């Protein structure tokens, strides 16, 4: 049952990618901040979960209730203190993008440095609900299934909040047309700050959930940033469903290549897929060409 095995593993991995990318697409698509320190937030959350679990016996799933609000607050603060001055002085979207890349590149090293000082360079993991479960002839551990379930619940909740509420619609309005958003009394900078914080919380959720079954270390953030960025661009910047679709696709293809071809080729497969999408649909799978 290799195929079912690959399917389940791929979906779990892809679900994590999708969740993490949804957060990045909020930050990049709404707040227009290309956050290079995104993966560090994920790793920080993984470490926080580790500390809560091993130090205070707080389970990772309960830890979500602590880590998510903290990440939201921290990201909001980062936006307010570090990024708002850039937003204010940016003459247009391009200058803001460049400024934010430089600023968050700096933030990346700060956060990574702190992680190295506190935790060193070694790999961390903990065992939580790693109970094998038989599923259609293949074996999955419970913690992976739980992670996928929580990722799906969070993703659905975010999607519904963005599409079914006025505040959510306002967030999408800022993503598609910030100037017009001002004309319907939306405080664009405030909504952008909120979206940035919300994106950071989604990223933290990704960190908590992946830490339940993946080993991690202080240097791994950049890998997640890169993959999230690939997924966001593949899906179409600012497009939640696009991020979902691209995330699942990436997870499945990675797993497929790792199992059936060669584990060393997963990164190459990643970029092959990325390139193919860029060549065939530069605006992303579900993105729209800028008019």
């Amino acid at each position, binding site marked *: 049952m290799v195929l079912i095995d690959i399917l389940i593993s791929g979906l779990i991995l892809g679900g994590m990618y999708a969740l993490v990318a949804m957060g990045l697409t909020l930050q990049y698509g709404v707040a227009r901040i290309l956050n290079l320190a995104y993966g560090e937030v994920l790793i920080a959350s993984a470490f926080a979960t580790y500390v809560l679990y091993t130090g205070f016996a707080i389970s990772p799933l309960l830890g979500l209730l602590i880590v998510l609000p903290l990440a939201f607050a921290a990201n909001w603060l980062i936006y307010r203190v570090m990024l708002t001055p850039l937003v204010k002085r940016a003459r247009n979207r391009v200058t803001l993008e460049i400024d934010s890349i430089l600023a968050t590149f700096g933030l990346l090293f700060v956060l990574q440095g702190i992680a190295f000082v506190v935790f060193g360079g070694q790999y961390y993991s903990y065992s939580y609900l790693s109970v094998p479960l038989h599923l259609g002839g293949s074996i999955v551990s419970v913690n992976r299934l739980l992670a996928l379930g929580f990722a799906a619940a969070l993703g659905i909740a975010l999607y519904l909040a963005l599409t079914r509420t006025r505040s959510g619609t306002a967030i999408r*309005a800022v993503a598609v047309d910030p100037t017009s958003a*001002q004309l319907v*009394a939306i405080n664009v900078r405030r909504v952008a700050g909120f979206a940035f914080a919300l994106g950071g919380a989604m990223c933290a959720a990704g960190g908590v959930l992946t830490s339940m079954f993946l080993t991690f270390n202080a240097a791994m953030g950049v890998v997640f940033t890169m993959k999230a960025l690939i997924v966001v661009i593949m899906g179409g910047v600012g497009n939640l469903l696009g991020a979902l679709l691209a995330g699942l696709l990436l997870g499945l293809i990675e797993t497929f290549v790792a199992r059936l071809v060669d584990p060393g080729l997963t990164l190459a497969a990643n970029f092959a897929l990325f390139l193919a999408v860029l060549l065939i649909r530069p605006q992303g799978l579900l993105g729209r060409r800028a008019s």
Partner: protein
Amino acid sequence: MLEIRHLSVSYGQHRALADIVLTANRGEIVVILGANGAGKSTLLKAVAGLVSAAAGASVRIRDRELAGDEPHRIVEAGIALVPEGRGIFGDLTVRENLQLGAYAARARDDEARNHARVLALFPRLAERMSQTARTMSGGEQQMLAIGRALMSSPEFLLLDEPSLGLSPLVCRELFAALKEIGASGIGVLLVEQNAKQSLAIAQRGYVIETGRITLAGKSEMLRADPAVQRAYLGAAGAASSTDTPSTD
């Protein structure tokens, strides 16, 4: 009353508006005429807070000073702009566009009533609530843009060339709707190239030339003015002039 005084705007070295003085009352339609590049859009943008005016400018509504305020606060104060090119959210549905129109805190209490009013004014929107805005015709998009602005319960509605690119039939519908909006007690500041139809529904008007107001008065007076006739109404002898807007 909307009171604009000493409003000047520069884009870098280029002065686009110089010392504009203009007033509009609630329930009144005021038209602003001017050739391409005269500064009409700049005037509306400055009032809405999208471009910043030079120091010394004053934009008052009910004695509240709005010059220098941020755009979202100006909407909250009761001024809604329908910009050049409509500015609707193309990716969102008609329903979502209207819902966002009532995002302002001032609009929440009257949301249901304004919604009913907009649909009464533009019945065609009612059939298209779930349609993505960008897929609608130009006329329908303009109706949506005006409807969205009305959802914010404005005291003053600013419109930047709403009839641009619309067929004569749709144009007539549009001007009829604007007349109704004015009659409902909202002040309308209307920038138009279609001088004939806009002067027909307006009570007063201003003519802007290269950033300055050169003429102001009642609509009948403007209609009778030879210079206005020549430049904007396509009177005989100037019909071939390139900057004469078509009046259908």
